[in-house]
Each structure stands twice: as structure tokens, then as C-alpha cells.
């Protein structure tokens, strides 16, 4: 079975400060990893994904994430946040083979950027 854990339910941060949103995954098989963002009253939008290759993945809006197999982590980072980054962020995984196409999500982290 696979699972995704996001330990921080809320992360407050001041504008222009760096931020890291934590994600840990658990799976007995190889997985793809994703970060989605949900702005108020909108659907989940893909920020970035790790499939293979370089462990540092760059996404939209200046976000990046690093895949760390030994720590089973896929933390999301941004060096300088903007007010418009205020949203809910979801980490998700999907099994490479034999697991269908379903995404397994974490509980989400609410990022609140303050002036």
C-alpha cells in the first residue's frame, strides 16, 4: 500500500520569505510524485512532478521540489513567496506499474502568505 504524509496542515510565511512544504511518501514499489495547488474556488492544478532522472524538479510559479529516495521525501520549496501563492498544496503519489492511475494524496498544507 502507498501513503503520503504532509505533516504541516498550515504554514504561515511573510511575503518574500522562503518556504518549504514537507511531504513524505511510503510505498513498497516505485512511485511517481506530484505536487498540486488549489486556489480558492478552483480545481487542483499540477505544480510539478517527479517521474525519473534529476532529483530536483522545477515547476510553475517558481516552485521546485527535491526527490530524496533515502528519506522518502519530496519537499516543495520556493525561495521567495508572493501573496498570490496563498493556496492549499497537495502532495500525491502514483504507482509506476500495476497500480492503475489513481493518485494517492496527502491531507494538504494551507500556505498563507502575509505582508
Amino acid at each position, binding site marked *: 500500500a502507498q501513503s503520503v504524509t504532509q505533516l504541516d496542515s498550515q504554514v504561515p510565511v511573510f511575503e518574500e520569505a522562503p518556504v518549504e512544504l514537507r511531504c513524505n511518501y511510503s510505498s513498497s514499489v516505485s512511485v511517481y510524485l506530484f505536487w498540486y495547488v488549489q486556489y480558492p474556488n478552483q480545481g487542483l492544478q499540477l505544480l510539478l512532478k517527479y517521474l525519473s532522472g534529476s532529483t530536483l524538479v522545477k515547476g510553475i510559479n517558481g516552485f521546485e521540489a527535491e526527490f530524496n529516495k533515502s528519506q522518502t521525501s519530496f519537499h516543495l520549496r520556493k525561495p521567495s513567496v508572493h501573496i498570490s501563492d496563498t493556496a492549499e498544496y497537495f502532495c500525491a503519489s502514483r504507482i509506476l*506499474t500495476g497500480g492503475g*492511475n489513481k493518485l494517492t494524496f*496527502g491531507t494538504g498544507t494551507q500556505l498563507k502568505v502575509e505582508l
Partner: protein
Amino acid sequence: EPEVTQTPSHQVTQMGQEVILRCVPISNHLYFYWYRQILGQKVEFLVSFYNNEISEKSEIFDDQFSVERPDGSNFTLKIRSTKLEDSAMYFCASSSSGSPAGEQYFGPGTRLTVT
């Protein structure tokens, strides 16, 4: 930019009533999904649908649930006899690819409240 749409945005129903949640996937997509998120909990996979049949479903997706693509554009989720614990945000998603690496595009969700 094409997007997944869902109606209604909010549905209130009484326990025991039938509800139909509607989704219009992106037009050239062939793979469809429903997920739900109970308040404060993880986004959970319900069902995937391809070629007019269910390809995978979770243990949540019991006999009270059904999905249909009635007219080639809509994708619906029906709950026959709603329970209080069905109260959740329901997300529809679609994808052009059956690969686990393919992106799923999400709608804004329908908030279902069962009273």
C-alpha cells in the same frame, strides 16, 4: 485554455435522497476520475473510467455509487441514497493519457452537504 467544469458548485440534500454530480471533462480526454475530500481529511480516489466502463474503484465506491458518461461530454457520479458521511467535496478529473505519468486535470469540485 480547456478546463474541467463541475456543476453544481454546492449541493445540499437530505439523507436518503439521490444526488447526481456532473462533470464536463476536457473534450479530447478519454480517462475520467472521481475523487472526494471529507473536510479535514485526505483527497481520496473513488473511481476511474475508460472506454465506457469502470477501470478501477476504491472500497469507498460501493453499490450506492455509480458513474456514467451519458452523452459523450458529461461524466456523472450518482449516489443513490445519500448518508451523512457522504458529505464531502467531490472532484472530477480527466486525462488524455492512460499512463501513470500522464497529468490528471481537475475540476473545481462540488461540495455535497447531506443533512
